[in-house]
């Protein structure tokens, strides 16, 4: 219970810091005034622009934490991560198509759907390639993930070069690729919160299955589990979660890797606790990273994905070095 209170305090503190941080730092009192309906232009800026963004960043982080926890569980692989497994790259390609290719359907529909299709397709491709290569072990998965991500990245770059006309669409795609948070309206934030809650519930429903799978496929089958079907379902849920995060936050790497790890340090491997804790840790981490992105180099803004990559890349290398000894 104390751990969960600490986590809650961490998330709230990160959101609080995020609300104060910016090119112009404000006091918590000013944030409070803005929430209570202050009439000044500063209050309007905080309430209409900064707060929705900070909360959206936290929700994106929660989704990434959830996606990471599911992927690491289903692949029984501590280095699995949406960014490295190609699902984030696939989602970004889908989003690029939705943004740049004139389609018959509205973008509000095509964007999340294509992002999801890309995420799901890319993950299935990585799994397929790894299976064909013989095993779902760490090196095979990571290498096929790298290769698939490279192909997807190249396709995306080509689309950007070939289809953009130097107007707004290319800027939107670019900001996604580098992990730029969109700032939704309050209604959008509400929608994202609902999506996050649904994703949390869906991931939690997978928890006991992931625990059984963690004992090995033979053991899981002995427990009466249809492993193939479960893995397919878990990949579907994980991909949908990642697609939701990419739709709002773009390509934000390494959070999905780090959050479940940090959760397991204290909680051990049981997914019933790891999954919600990953969501909370992801939320706090992205809210903090976004605060850095918005305030470090005024008046410019660093793309969020660069901040998480610079902070998270070394973390991944550290895990890789440590786990390498076990292979």
């Amino acid at each position, binding site marked *: 219970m104390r751990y969960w209170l600490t986590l809650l305090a961490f998330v709230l503190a990160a959101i609080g810091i995020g609300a104060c941080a*910016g*090119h*112009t730092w404000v006091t918590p009192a000013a944030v409070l005034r803005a929430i209570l309906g202050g009439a000044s*232009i*500063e209050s*309007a*800026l905080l309430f*209409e*622009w900064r707060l929705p963004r900070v909360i959206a960043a936290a929700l994106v982080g929660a989704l990434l934490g959830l996606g990471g926890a599911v992927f690491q569980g289903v692949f029984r692989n501590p280095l699995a991560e949406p960014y490295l497994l190609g699902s984030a790259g696939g989602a970004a390609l889908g989003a690029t198509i939705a943004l740049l290719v004139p389609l018959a359907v509205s973008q509000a529909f095509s964007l999340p759907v294509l992002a999801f299709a890309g995420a799901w397709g890319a993950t299935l491709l990585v799994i397929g390639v790894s299976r064909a290569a013989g095993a779902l072990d760490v090196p095979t998965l990571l290498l096929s993930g790298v290769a698939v991500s490279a192909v997807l990245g190249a396709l995306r770059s080509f689309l950007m*070069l*070939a289809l*953009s*006309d*130097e*107007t*707004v669409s290319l*800027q*939107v795609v*670019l*900001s996604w690729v580098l992990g730029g948070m969109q*700032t939704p*309206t309050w209604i959008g934030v509400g929608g994202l919160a609902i999506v996050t809650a649904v994703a949390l519930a869906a991931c939690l429903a997978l928890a006991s299955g992931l625990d059984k799978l963690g004992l090995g496929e033979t053991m899981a089958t002995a427990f009466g589990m249809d492993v193939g079907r479960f893995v397919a379902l878990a990949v579907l849920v994980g991909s949908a979660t990642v697609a939701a995060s990419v739709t709002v936050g773009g390509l934000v790497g390494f959070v999905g890797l780090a959050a479940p790890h940090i959760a397991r340090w204290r909680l051990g491997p049981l997914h019933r606790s790891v999954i919600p804790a990953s969501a909370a840790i992801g939320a706090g981490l992205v809210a903090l990273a976004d605060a850095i992105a*918005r305030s470090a*180099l*005024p*008046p*410019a*803004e*660093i793309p969020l994905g660069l901040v998480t990559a610079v902070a998270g890349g070394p973390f991944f290398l550290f895990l890789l070095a440590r786990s390498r000894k076990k292979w």
Partner: protein
Amino acid sequence: MALVKHIVAAALVAAAIPFGGASAEPVSIVDALGREVVVPAPPKRIVTVFSSNTELIAALGLADRIVGIDAMTRYPPEIVSKPHVGGRLGFSVDTVVAQRPDLVIVTPARQAANQLVEPMRRLGIPVIVLMSRTMTEVIANVRLLGKATSQSGTGESVARAMETRIDTVQKKNAGRTRPRVVMITGQLGNGLMLVARPNTYTGDAMRIAGADFALPTLRTLAQVSPEAILASAPDVVLFAGRQEDFDDLLTRPGWRDLRAVRAGRAWTVPRAEWLIPGPRTVDGIERLAERLRQPEGS
């Protein structure tokens, strides 16, 4: 008699209202993204993002109303000390709002429109998005900003002066053969070159100055290999940049043997005149037209 005086005075006042520079009537314009923008009163604090927009406002005589610029803007000299609201890495909503602007003017490049339009809309600060895809559009921007800043008269006369000068150039060029020209606007690290292409204001300005494209089939991709430029055997090579960079390029294999280089028809042109869409572009057109009319070897 007194009554007549009153009527005359009232008529004069009524007639003066539409022409008064400081009338508080809201002005409504449609910007390059097709958005309707309402400027409620003549703006007194204007944030101009990108050199071109700053120069357009300055050309209307409103440089003293500019309260924020982007970090790469260097002209006119009186604005260089204004606060920066963004630069290479993007633009800051916080810093723009801190200048308390009553009008923001941006162009969709380097994320500016993407980062600034929506927050300004939510905060109720009018924001105009301008594009410069053709010279016609560049001149239309002068009129549009004239209207938005309640300086329609100045906007009209600046725009008309630009049109007259362009007309003069075109009349002088009528009937002349157009030399085939390549204008290099940038070099990428991988050796590829950026060149001015059709369907851009820079390409438009080249055509007005009397040039033809040596690489006419370029569409959206502006990157070409040096070989393609050499193979196109242009009559004139233009380099938008510094003389020493151009000299450096000309020492590379193949360039010395280009007909244009051997004939002494390889010149630098000022980036400010060719890559910032504004009144100075017409200076560039006149200067280039003059040079293109000179016979080879002169």
